[in-house]
């Protein structure tokens, strides 16, 4: 197959228009990067805000948002290509299967079967008892 026809076909294979110039490429990618950096810094800052158990939830939520941005804009999931969406979505569903059932077990396991060396369930720091080294 000749190069010319392949170039034509490569253009056709994209749902989103492929940027052809340096300017267009940068204009499309830089804002995404700025948002990503902003999210990363926000996540770092928010981690110092005492929110109890919500700290980790917020951090992971921001991580998921970053994943979504990278997936949509850098990994071209915006392309209306069913194959890519299939592959890109399947793993999420399957990780969901794994997580849902593992946590279902852990959340409902008999109290006796929880580990013996169990610390406080709450996210509060351990009370500083005399003689214990702090962290």
């Amino acid at each position, binding site marked *: 197959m000749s190069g010319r026809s392949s170039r034509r076909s490569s253009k056709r294979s994209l749902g989103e228009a492929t940027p052809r110039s340096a300017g267009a490429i940068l204009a499309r990618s830089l804002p995404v990067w700025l948002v990503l950096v902003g999210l990363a810094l926000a996540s770092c800052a928010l981690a110092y805000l005492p929110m109890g158990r919500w700290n980790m939830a917020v951090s992971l939520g921001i991580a998921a948002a970053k994943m979504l941005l990278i997936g949509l804009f850098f990994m071209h999931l915006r392309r209306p290509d069913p194959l890519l969406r299939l592959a890109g979505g399947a793993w999420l569903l399957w990780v969901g299967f794994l997580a849902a059932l593992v946590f279902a077990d852990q959340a409902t396991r008999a109290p*006796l*079967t929880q580990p*013996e*060396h*169990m610390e*406080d369930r709450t996210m509060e720091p351990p009370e500083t*008892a005399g003689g*214990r080294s702090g962290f």
Partner: protein
Amino acid sequence: MSGIAFWPPAASEVAAGVDAIVIAMLAISGAIVLLVAALLLGFAIRYRRGSAARRGELPELIQKEVEVGWTAATAFLAMFLFAWASIAVLGGQRGDPDALEIHILARQWMWKARHPDGAREIDALHLPRGEPVRLVMRSEDVIHSFYVPSFRLKQDVLPGRMTQLSLKPTQTGEFPLFCAEYCGTLHSRMLGKVVVMEPEDYARWRAAQPQADDLAREGRALFESVGCSGCHAPASRVHAPELRGLYGRQVALADGSVRRADEAYLRDSILQPRRDIAAGYEPVMPPFAGILGEGELQAILAYLMSMPARGASPGEPRNMSSEP
């Protein structure tokens, strides 16, 4: 048991229920196997090449209805069996709070049992017939599994966590006990026996066991050397809970709930004292997790469980706690 093993005796309360489901499922699967075999052989013979049987296309409608029919039938059958089995298992889960609490410690490759007053045995377990029993089990090393076929019961025994098994023996006799989870070299030698006796025989057996066992004595020494007695002794200036007669009692906790001071509670309170704080006390006790070894902990627990209520002298076994 001798001769040929075929259908193990049903010696626990749940066993009869399990056997009923097994028999029902055997009947159902037998019927299905017969059906499939009859259809396979029947079709194979009738529609062998060259036979005179009528051939031709099936009407599309019938195909679909047959298909939907047996899909639905299988689904209903599966749901029925699920419901039956689950109701049975939920019924068996109701633990009796007054059950006889026996502690099982599994290790490569033996079973150790300890009865409420400290009577201990290895690779054997004596049980009274007709009384609810709660086995609280843990392992010292790897995963084992406590399996008594005649009880139709099995429970893995985990290291670092406890599991429990509630049962009520219904038949006297001697039943084999197996380790069912592969646990290393001598896995197949990790056998024992469960001896179910009439309650009065059981009481007699237990009374005949060496009393005030060494474990509790050892525990008493540890109780002092590790420093428990510094606070928990009656003369101590620190405001600490009274431990004599604690085992088996209901304890009011700081969060308003009430818990029975079973062995699990005592154990947790030593390892992680800040978890369940007894009402009216400051959380000042240091955790002993990582300080006490499993053996030492067992000794201290044995001592605590053998401490009589106020009045009697410590170190002497007290009568079985809460049995009516």
